[in-house]
């Protein structure tokens, strides 16, 4: 098994195992998690020999070779160090969490998330490819989001999680962009290639962009100013999470990244100003803010921000020694801060609060824990003989060096930060001294005592490390530091000395000033500035990052809503308006050259044809005028346009179209009338009879303009098309081959059933689909309450036919005489349908027309005697017609397969029969039969489904009132 992927995978496996553990147990998921971590830790530690020997472990797997993206695992000294921090502290935190977490919490999820985070963090550390690093980077954001929001029922947890995730993800996306640019400059996303291309990178025009973007990624992750605000809010997480993520690991990812890319990016003015500047601000602000926190975790959070600022400043300074100091302080900070968080957790666990305004004198109740916490705080404050002191000294030294002999500002700032950190450390340990505040604790004071043995154990380990490193730095971690720093600095490693005592020098002086100043400052604050009661931070209380974040989010939402309100609509009419505008504008803007505008030729003006279209156009315009309040008039007028259209088809050599249009006109009229039955009358309100208000007139004017523009556009296009000479087109082929090869003289029909039979198959499918949709819809149809009652015409007793059933009307009522004709027409229409069907291949006609004629013939019978009467005598089963029509059409096409031809290839059988002579039976005939059946079935299904609705209101009990509720209607009759 390849080592490095295994290392990353182990925590994920552990996460999965922990997730599968049954609820209610604390030990089992914790054990699963700890075992996985321990295994990974041991594996890592075992590699130290190879790493210390200068070896870089690598492992490569292909992922996206086209984009030069391989999965590269790479462990050098820096990665090793971070891996050990991640795994070591992780292990301790897991042990601690086993005791800290309550039995009622969903623990499987907790440990799974912790391990998933651990795996992601290891992924960041061990990535040898920039993009891969971003992948794991975002994963740490995501898993930390889950961990911060672990107590999801708490509002502050959700808020903190969202804030942290938003900031770090945004940073992550910037980082991705930066990495992409970096990869673009370096020509590879491989870390080693990028590091090797440092000079090229820094000379490139895109370097500043890449630097800013990467810095944004790092600074957001490491909670640097001005993105620091998320970290205090992330303290809503369970304390083990804070101990792990917000001290030791995740926030270190940012500084890790800066270290990782230090060779490639650092050394420029921009780097120093950007990184150093952000670090400096953070360092001062963080430490100052920390003093004024009341929540112990809040104090630690700001302290963390400040320490990360310190590391960032060191990296920004850019000298090799400062890098060493940065690495060293990273390590030290992880150790003491994790232990401090765990100590806070113990306090919280035992007392039920972390409020330093309440807590007092805990040293008596838990002396052992108090001692540990005091030592760790001392390390944080930089007290000699503890690890924090050493790295802080190195920082002071570098700070003092930066400005040379003129500029001491950085040294002053560093000292100031030292003062502040002493002050907040004092404030922190204040909870252990003094008398025990009995009454204000959430829990009875006598229950406050030392935590379980193993809960304290991780703290002990870390505090021991603090002391060990502080006392014997070279022995304990000298090698590790050297290896890690070497991984960053390479051959340019400077000489440095990890001794405790360097003699009396400037840094020591600064330390002394800081210690003393810190104590004095603390006393001053307590005495004069009402430290324990004040709720805001002096001087800087206006600087509220979280508030700014919330404002930005608010603006974003409002802005988005505003944008949507102004650039979108949910209404149909504006959408159509836009469509028309685009339809007119887009071709004018895009097409080049626009076709020449032909001269209007009046020579071929045919007044007869013109008068035909005078009719059509007048009807269309009148329909537009009438459609709102006079639906039937509009329908009749649209019919007028239909007549003009079909006669035009006839006149202009398209008899097939004329026939089809004629039939469609008829069926459409019937259809719309069937529908109008269910559309309650719309009467023109008397109020609207007068002149319309200005807004309405404006709307109408605008729509009229649009209609004119659209109409003009299509008219112009038509004219252009008509006046251009006809070019070479494929249609000559059809004319030439229709008869000899298609077997039919009617080229249009041969096109439909042979050349383009595939179209026709789709077309009958559309018809069938629509019929099914209509049928399905109407089965659920709830008519408007106003139209549920039988129509007004049938309610007025002016008409003697009012009380008659449809069968009575047709049998003896007013329809008797008309019915004689209409019934006699049925076989005639059938015959005519057969006629048009049979001749379609050679002359105008075909399956469509025939199908529509046949359907009309049946509908006429429905109109005569009503649905019930017809259906008692005729089971139509339109579904079967549709199915068999589609089946026959498709089957005919498939028949060609049997003889080795493509789908739909037509064959003509030439039969010679006695008496009848030779008969040609083209297979297209069978295809057309399918068309016929499908058309009949679909048309009947649509019309009959609509017609059946009337039955429902007629079946209502007689005395049920005039307008029963739609829901009281009987169900639709089944179509058979």
């Amino acid at each position: 098994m390849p080592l490095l992927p295994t290392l990353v995978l182990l925590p994920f496996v552990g996460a999965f195992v922990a997730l599968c553990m049954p609820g209610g147990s604390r030990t089992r998921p914790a054990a699963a998690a700890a075992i996985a971590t321990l295994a990974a830790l041991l594996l890592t530690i075992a590699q130290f020999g190879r790493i210390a020997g200068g070896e870089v472990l690598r492992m490569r797997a292909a992922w996206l070779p086209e984009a030069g993206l391989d999965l590269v695992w790479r462990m050098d000294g820096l990665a090793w160090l971070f891996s050990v921090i991640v795994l070591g502290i992780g292990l301790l935190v897991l042990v601690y969490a086993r005791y800290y977490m309550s039995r009622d919490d969903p623990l499987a999820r907790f440990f799974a998330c912790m391990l998933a985070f651990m795996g992601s963090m290891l992924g960041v550390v061990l990535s040898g490819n920039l993009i891969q690093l971003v992948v794991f980077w975002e994963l740490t954001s995501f898993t930390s989001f889950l961990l911060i929001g672990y107590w999801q029922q708490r509002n502050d947890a959700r808020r903190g999680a969202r804030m942290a995730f938003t900031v770090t993800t945004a940073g992550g996306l910037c980082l991705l962009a930066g990495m992409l640019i970096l990869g673009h400059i370096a020509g590879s996303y491989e870390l080693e290639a990028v590091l090797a291309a440092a000079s090229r990178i820094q000379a490139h025009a895109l370097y500043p962009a890449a630097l800013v973007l990467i810095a944004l990624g790092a600074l957001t992750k490491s909670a640097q100013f001005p993105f620091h605000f998320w970290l205090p809010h992330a303290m809503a997480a369970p304390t083990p999470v804070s101990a792990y993520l917000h001290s030791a690991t995740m926030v270190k990812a940012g500084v890790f990244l800066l270290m990782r890319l230090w060779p490639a990016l650092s050394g420029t003015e921009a780097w120093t100003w950007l990184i150093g500047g952000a670090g400096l601000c953070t360092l001062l602000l963080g430490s100052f803010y920390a003093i004024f926190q009341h929540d112990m975790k809040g104090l630690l959070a700001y302290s963390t921000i400040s320490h990360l600022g310190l590391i960032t400043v060191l990296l920004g300074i850019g000298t090799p020694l400062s890098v060493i100091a940065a690495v060293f302080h990273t390590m030290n900070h992880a150790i003491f801060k994790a232990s401090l968080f765990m100590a806070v957790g113990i306090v919280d666990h035992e007392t039920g609060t972390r409020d330093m305004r309440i807590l007092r004198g805990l040293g008596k109740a838990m002396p052992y824990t108090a001692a540990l916490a005091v030592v760790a705080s001392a390390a944080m404050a930089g007290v000699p003989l503890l690890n924090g002191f050493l790295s802080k000294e190195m920082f002071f030294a570098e700070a003092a060096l930066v400005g040379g002999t003129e500029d001491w500002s950085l040294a002053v700032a560093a000292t100031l930060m030292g003062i502040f950190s002493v002050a907040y450390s004092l404030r922190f340990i204040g909870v252990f001294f003094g008398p025990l505040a009995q009454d204000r604790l959430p829990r009875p004071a006598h229950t406050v005592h030392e935590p379980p043995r193993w809960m304290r154990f991780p703290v002990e380990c870390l505090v021991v490390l603090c002391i060990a490193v502080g006392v014997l730095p070279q022995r304990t971690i000298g090698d590790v530091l050297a290896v890690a720093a070497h991984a960053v600095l390479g051959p340019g490693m400077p000489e440095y000395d990890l001794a405790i005592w360097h003699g009396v020098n400037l840094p020591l002086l600064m330390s002394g000033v800081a210690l003393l100043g810190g104590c004095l400052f603390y006393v001053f604050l307590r005495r004069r500035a009402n430290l324990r009661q004040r709720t805001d931070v002096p001087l800087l209380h206006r600087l509220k990052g979280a508030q700014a974040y919330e404002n930005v989010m608010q603006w974003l939402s409002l802005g988005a809503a505003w944008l949507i309100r102004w650039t979108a609509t949910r209404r149909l009419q504006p959408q159509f308006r836009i469509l028309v505008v685009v339809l007119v504008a887009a071709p004018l803007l895009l097409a080049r050259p626009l076709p020449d505008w032909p001269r209007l030729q009046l020579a071929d003006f045919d007044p007869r044809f013109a008068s035909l279209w005078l009719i059509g156009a007048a009807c269309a315009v009148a329909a537009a005028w009438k459609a709102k309040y006079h639906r039937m008039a509009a329908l009749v007028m649209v019919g007028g346009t239909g007549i003009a259209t079909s006669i035009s088809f006839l006149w202009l050599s398209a008899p097939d179209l004329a026939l089809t249009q004629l039939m469609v006109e008829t069926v459409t009229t019937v259809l719309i009338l069937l529908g109008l039955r269910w559309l309650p009358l719309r009467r023109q309100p008397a109020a609207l009879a007068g002149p319309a208000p200005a807004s309405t007139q404006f709307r109408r004017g605008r729509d009229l303009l649009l209609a004119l523009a659209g109409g003009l556009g299509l008219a112009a296009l038509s004219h252009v098309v008509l006046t251009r000479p006809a070019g070479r087109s494929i249609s000559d082929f059809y004319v030439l081959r229709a008869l000899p090869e298609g077997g039919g003289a009617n080229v249009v029909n041969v096109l439909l059933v042979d050349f383009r039979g595939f179209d026709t198959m789709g077309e009958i499918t559309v018809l069938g689909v629509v019929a099914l949709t209509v049928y399905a819809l109407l089965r659920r149809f709830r008519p408007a309450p106003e139209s549920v009652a039988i129509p007004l015409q049938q309610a007025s007793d002016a008409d003697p036919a009012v009380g008659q059933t449809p069968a009575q009307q047709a049998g003896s009522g007013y329809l008797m005489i008309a019915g004689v004709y209409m019934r006699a027409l049925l076989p005639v229409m059938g015959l005519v349908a057969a006629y048009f069907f049979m001749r379609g291949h050679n002359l105008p006609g075909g399956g469509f027309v025939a199908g529509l004629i046949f359907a009309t013939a049946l509908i006429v019978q429905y109109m005569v005697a009503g649905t019930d009467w017809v259906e008692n005598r005729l089971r139509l089963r339109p579904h079967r017609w549709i199915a068999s029509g589609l089946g026959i059409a498709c089957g005919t096409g498939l028949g060609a397969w049997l003889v080795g031809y493509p789908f739909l290839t037509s064959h003509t059988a030439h039969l010679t029969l006695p008496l009848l002579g030779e008969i040609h039976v083209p297979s297209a005939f069978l295809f057309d039969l399918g068309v016929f059946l499908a058309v009949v079935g679909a048309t009947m299904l649509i019309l009959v489904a609509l017609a059946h609705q009337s039955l429902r209101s007629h079946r209502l009990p007689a005395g049920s009132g005039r307008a029963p509720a739609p829901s009281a209607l009987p169900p639709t009759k089944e179509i058979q």
Partner: protein
Amino acid sequence: MTPLDHLLLAPVLLPLLCGAVLVPLTEGWHRLKFALGYASVLGMLASALALAALTDGGYWQHGIGVYLAANWAAPFGIALVADRLAALMLLLTALLALAALHFARLRWGRIGVHFHSLFQFLLMGINGAFLTHDLFNLFVFFEVMLAASYGLVLHGYNAERLRASMQYIAINLAASLLFLIGAALIYAAAGTLNMSDLAARMAGLAPGARGLFEIGATVLALAFLIKSAMWPLGFWLPTTYAAASPPVAAMLVLMTKVGAYAILRLWLLLFPQAGFGHDALLWGGMATIVFGAAGMLSSDNAGRLAGYGAVVSSGTLLAVIGYGQATLVAGALYYLAGSTLAIAAFLLLIELIERIRTPHASVLAVTLEAWAVEDKPDEPVGRGVPAAMAFLALSFAACAMVIAGLPPLSGFVAKFSLFHALLNPPQGTIAAAGWTLMALIIGSGLVSVLSMMRFGVRTFWANSGAAPPKLHRSEVLPVLFLLGLSVFMTVEAGSVFAWLDRASEGIHRPQDYIGRVLGQPVVPSPVPQPAAAEAP
């Protein structure tokens, strides 16, 4: 013509025949209907896989399979063309259909009538649109697809669905008219409808005809852009997605991509160098990204959120196509597949998530009332276990990651590959539009994160009283399946991209299509044609 050539037809004929067989089964027979539909989808999946193998395996020259329906040579008859791109889309359709159909098994397939038939016809239309090489035939398949989608969007009749479909249908009817105008203009200008023939005739067009052709192409593009919901033509989309039933909405996601597919295919064939209208596409696409992102931020309803997510993905796709850089296309195709799967999975998930919000039983009761159904679908029989909650949360997170393009799932890979291609153009300089596009894609990703996180937090966290929902295996599996495909695409990104690169190279060589399609011989007649049949 070999037996394998007939495979080109399978994705169209299988659903057609299956749909036709299902038509007479109006009520009841749920198991039979589901089994038939499922068998057909599995058949489609098999044929799509086979086509993918054939197009990529050197079986056909240039990886282009041509099927001359009715045995008429290419510009005259209707040719179906399968290449790697078509195979990809067919595969995507089949996979999505498998998930949607499976999801519909328990409930949606049983409500009302003809769900299964309409579903099959929808697949027929979509598949036909991917395969056909004829402009008007494309219209016909669009209509088949749309007609079925109208029925499916209305499936489960309630007021909201009716409102949404009124809009959806009206807009798409108008779009169909535009399609017809565009196709007619193109025929008027070039005298042919076969896409390869059009490509071959492009060079010889007179200036006047060229103008006419471009007007036609513009109008046609508007029809496609309405379907792919480009701003300001796509306002119907969020409303429709939010209203449609989950399995249908999942299929609608794919339909949004059909428009982009058609544009990609036609534009690469017809305007390989000139890049007609690319700027409009690019800026329109970018506007769509902004619009979709704003929509995601401002929507409080899961359906609309998903809808705007689809708008963003559509905008990204259109902008990338409009950018007109050949090396971007493979990434665009990967993005298309990934985002389609994720948004579809999200849409399926929404229904399950809704069950957390209110106790399940009342949801069922309320919706039953709203559907106005008389027949009661089977109660989902799954147990309410906490694992169900975990499943929902994790699946939601996975969907959100893919939609937002967060690592490590396919959404990230897609965006990375787009960025990589944008940053490393063959000609060396990165256009300003490229930077803008990159910024927009990143920004829209961030916005997606924010909106999805807000929705997730509200749903899964702020709603602590939620009882564990009852889920059924048939509802869980499709979601897992779709997410599994995302994972597969991520893990196997290398080989997927290799395939997509070949696909992209293929569609950038119009000459291959012209040669293959117009050169495809018809099956010769075994005997000389008998004397012409007598005309009256």
